[in-house]
């Protein structure tokens, strides 16, 4: 056996590699264990048809908090934000394409409503301001509300003020906005259905609720964190290539001495004398380590890898009550040619952004309705991207990769199962739906792969296939993420830490949880004299 390590990190996704690199840079010997065949987790692009690669990661690469990039010395992580970030159907063969530039977006909006066009700039500024507050919040550990509510909120306010020039009135506006439904928020501002649907889709991404549910205004702000003001869903993509973040993280981690083993699935966290002592792999191999930082989701870690006798039953109950509710699926398409979308303005540029196929908030709501009863709507909500336009290396010359992101396809179906026929039916439905706006689409499909929540669970070990590792709803963020009492990354088991998207600041904040968790672990390590 090789030299003992200070910390084992479970999972070599973005958060795992970020945590590992942070720990190694502080002088720890770190071993990362990855169950997949290579590092990268959901961020890894895999070949799903000969010559075609795609990653099932969400619609954007997320926001890499600048302090994380700085701390790890990640260079070359520039993003390209396409000019047209999102396009929505606004009638038969008619699309509303929103520019990242508020004044150009207003021009497009004016064709549908002059009133909306007038308000767009102010709305974009407001959203940027409020999501800017979240941005500040996402670079620090969650406030510890239990001990003294106000004493903790005030420094937060200070952080926000310094970083974003937010005043008390803005803070009040933020507090008023986050419990709202995204539909209420948008109804307060706009009248145009397509505009509201295009923006509102960001308020329901990867949750099971529809746009009329309270708290979806927060979800919208969450997905705007790090986007330029007015760029809807516009966090952009890595300019350096599809695998840029993972490649850089691997370089930095390896350069700092981190060891990475793939194909090494952790079956159990070993506990001795009430604290973690290492892990046992699926192969039976045992690896000792005083500290374990898991980026697997909280349920998988605390319920799946820890012997129940070590945890307080109430704490276990709280973990089992985490709402995962994976309800998003993907269809990866290998295409012989780009789809043709009649009426889509500047197709080559629009397709660099996202096409959101649902044109009204009511349609979004109806699609979500079915999921409440464990069914799949006849009218799926689909968002499309063509990654091969961003990075041609993902497909053979002249060919393309298209990724369809679908909601709401619940993990738990009431009257059918996610089996091969179910998967095929879903794929056929998606192809048919796309063909409505892109006639002849089906004939350009060379190959397709359907990834349901059940597949996401099997492939990535995500409970209920939830890419969020726990829905980003108001009751599951900040000091409640993943559960009260474990929000500061340390679990009730000494030496066991959580650092995946299931922890603050949650999903879509690339490396955020991993970095904050590693820093907490290091503080505790230094308190113990940085020994063993």
């Amino acid at each position, binding site marked *: 056996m090789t030299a003992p390590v200070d910390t084992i990190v479970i999972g070599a996704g973005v958060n795992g590699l970020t945590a590992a690199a942070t720990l190694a840079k502080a002088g720890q010997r770190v071993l990362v264990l990855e169950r997949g065949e290579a590092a990268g987790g959901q961020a890894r692009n895999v070949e799903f048809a000969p010559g075609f690669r795609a990653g099932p990661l969400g619609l954007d690469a997320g926001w890499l908090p600048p302090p994380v990039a700085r701390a790890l010395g990640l260079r070359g992580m520039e993003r390209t934000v396409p000019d047209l970030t999102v396009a929505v159907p606004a009638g038969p063969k008619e699309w509303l394409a929103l520019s990242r530039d508020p004044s150009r977006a207003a021009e497009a909006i004016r064709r549908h409503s002059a009133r909306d066009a007038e308000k767009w700039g102010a709305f974009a500024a407001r959203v940027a301001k409020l999501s800017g507050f979240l941005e500040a919040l996402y670079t620090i550990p969650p406030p510890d*509300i*239990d*001990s*003294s*509510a*106000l004493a903790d909120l005030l420094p937060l306010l200070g952080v926000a003020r310094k970083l974003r020039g937010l*005043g*008390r*009135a803005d*803070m*009040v*506006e933020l*507090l*008023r*906005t986050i*419990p*709202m*439904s995204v539909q*209420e928020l948008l109804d*307060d501002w706009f009248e145009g259905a397509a505009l509201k649907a295009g923006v509102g889709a960001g308020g329901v991404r990867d949750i099971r*609720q529809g746009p*009329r*549910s*309270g*708290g979806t205004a927060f979800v919208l702000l969450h997905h705007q964190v790090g986007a330029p003001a007015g760029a809807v869903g516009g966090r952009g993509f890595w300019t350096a290539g599809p695998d840029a973040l993972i490649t850089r993280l691997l370089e930095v981690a390896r350069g700092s001495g981190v060891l990475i083993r793939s194909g090494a699935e952790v079956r159990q966290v070993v506990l001795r004398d009430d604290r973690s002592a290492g892990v046992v792999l699926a192969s039976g191999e045992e690896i000792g380590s005083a500290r374990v930082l898991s980026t697997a989701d909280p349920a998988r870690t605390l319920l799946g890898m820890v012997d129940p006798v070590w945890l307080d039953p109430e704490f276990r109950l709280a973990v089992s*009550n985490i*709402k995962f509710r994976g309800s998003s699926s993907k269809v990866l398409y290998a295409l012989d040619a780009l789809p043709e979308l009649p009426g889509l303005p500047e197709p080559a540029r629009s397709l660099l952004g996202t096409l959101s196929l649902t044109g009204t908030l*009511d349609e979004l*709501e*109806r699609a979500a*309705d079915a999921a*409440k*009863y464990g069914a799949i709507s006849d009218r799926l909500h689909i968002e499309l991207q063509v990654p091969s336009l961003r990075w041609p290396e993902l497909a053979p010359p002249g060919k393309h990769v298209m990724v369809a992101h679908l909601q709401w396809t619940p993990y738990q179906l009431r009257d059918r199962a996610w089996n091969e026929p179910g998967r095929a039916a879903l794929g056929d439905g998606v192809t048919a739906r796309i063909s409505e706006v892109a006639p002849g689409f089906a004939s350009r499909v060379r190959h397709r792969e359907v990834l349901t929540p059940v597949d996401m669970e099997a492939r990535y070990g995500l409970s209920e296939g939830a890419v969020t590792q726990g829905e980003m*709803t*108001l*009751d599951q963020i900040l*000091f*409640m993420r993943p559960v*009260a*009492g474990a929000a500061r990354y340390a679990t009730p088991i000494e030496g066991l830490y959580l650092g995946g998207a299931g922890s603050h600041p949650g999903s879509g904040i690339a490396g955020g949880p991993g970095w904050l968790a590693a820093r907490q672990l290091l503080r505790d390590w230094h308190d113990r004299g940085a020994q063993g």
Partner: protein
Amino acid sequence: MKRYDAIIVGGGHNGLVTAAYLARAGRKTLVLERRPLVGGAAVTEEVFPGFKFSVYSYVVSLLRPEIIRDLDLPRHGLQILPLESTVVPLDNGDYLGSWADGDLTRRELARHSRKDAEAATLFGRLMHHMAMAVKPILAMVPPDPASLAPSDLRGMLRFAGHFRSLGAERFHALYKLMTMSSADYLDEWFEFDPLKATKSASGIIGTFLGPRSPGTAYVLLHHYMGEIDGAFRAWGFQKGGTGAISETIARAARSFGAEIRTDAAVERVLVKGGRATGVALASGEEIAAPIVVSGLDPRRTFTQLVDPGEMPGDVVEAISRFKFRGSSGKVNLALSRLPDLTCLPGAGPHLRGAISISPSLDYLERAYDDAKYGEFSRNPYMDIVIPSMIDPGMAPPGKHVMSIFVQYAPYALSGGWTDARREAFGDAVVNTLARHAPDIRSAIIGRQVLTPLDIERTTGLTEGNIFAGELALHQLFFFRPVPGWAKYRTPIKGYWQCGAGTHPGGGIMGASGRLAALEILRGSGA
């Protein structure tokens, strides 16, 4: 022109409470009510000869004990009769009951789920503790969180202090309660679906949300807040209907010297140089007073009683965003005899309590789905009571009155409310009831159907919202009705608000009226 110290616009129960407190402090106070009777949405009317109904609001919830004490309401006729049980008819022909006797209720619940019967005890204890912490907030003037004034900072500290005193575990439970849907919250505790549905029904009342919408859980607390007052139970009937409560408060106000004029519709509030100077009635009469208090809802108070031009633009804008979205209707039935429930035949004690049509969470959620797209619920949630069982004076001997609260009936019905749609809505309600009490149709000798539009037309409540504005998280406490103007003042000097559109709002509680009066007295150097 006659002079008063204060004029209250609107003789609803909150307006009457404000009037009583002002008069008690020696202010010459006048209440002006548009309708021929006081009470607003808390009125008793003889809709059919011999049959009296609490036409709109039908149960008393959380009437503040300090008001009962300060105004000596029992002396003026307050007499609350307890509403002790709830029966939920189930789809399988069985029922779920809950009774005044806690042991009986536990045994009944254990019949359906042993696990839930055990959980109910722990749940009740937790809710009790949280209600204890939250209840003082009902008696608090909301501080302005954006202000740096010492009184506001102290207020914020006091507000925060209530939560800190809970301790970590209960604070987290409270946080979940504030942010979760009632369905999700109850899922963590219970397994028996009709129990969860019935409990969560209290969270959807008066809102345009379904039981799976976040923000509906915290209303669960209200139930427990009533119980800890001790003086009376959470829910009950006033002898003589809810109108009798209004009359009781009116009597108290008069005993302190307040004048009350009915059939006196206020057309507008007179403003001169940014100050309220009195009111003008629809009749053309003008009455002067340095203080004018509106008991009307925020939209009427800020943008209809006064020229919106008198208000800062951002306040008018904020008021235009305040959500009403009336979602409930009411069906009042005059009955020749008692209904016979299939699940509990005969005239048992269950008819002295509430009958709740809430067989499952999916049932309630589907009722909401209909309303979201502009239809009334085909199979609505209904809360049914028979006041004549407890107060025989409400109906002729041997006959009965039945009050049915119905959700959802959207104010913005697609195509709009017509007489035909109203009757179709009434039919849906009776058909739903008939599934559980097939003999009901032949017992009906009179039927009054009230849509949100009817409620708006008669009571003046905008969009027929029974709480004078939705009780949603972003419309509570210092957000009610709008940030910066939650302390009962308005931007016009001398013009105040005291209705349920201010904190804490909702139900026959009187707290808004009382807090407004105390602020007015403080602000005018009493």
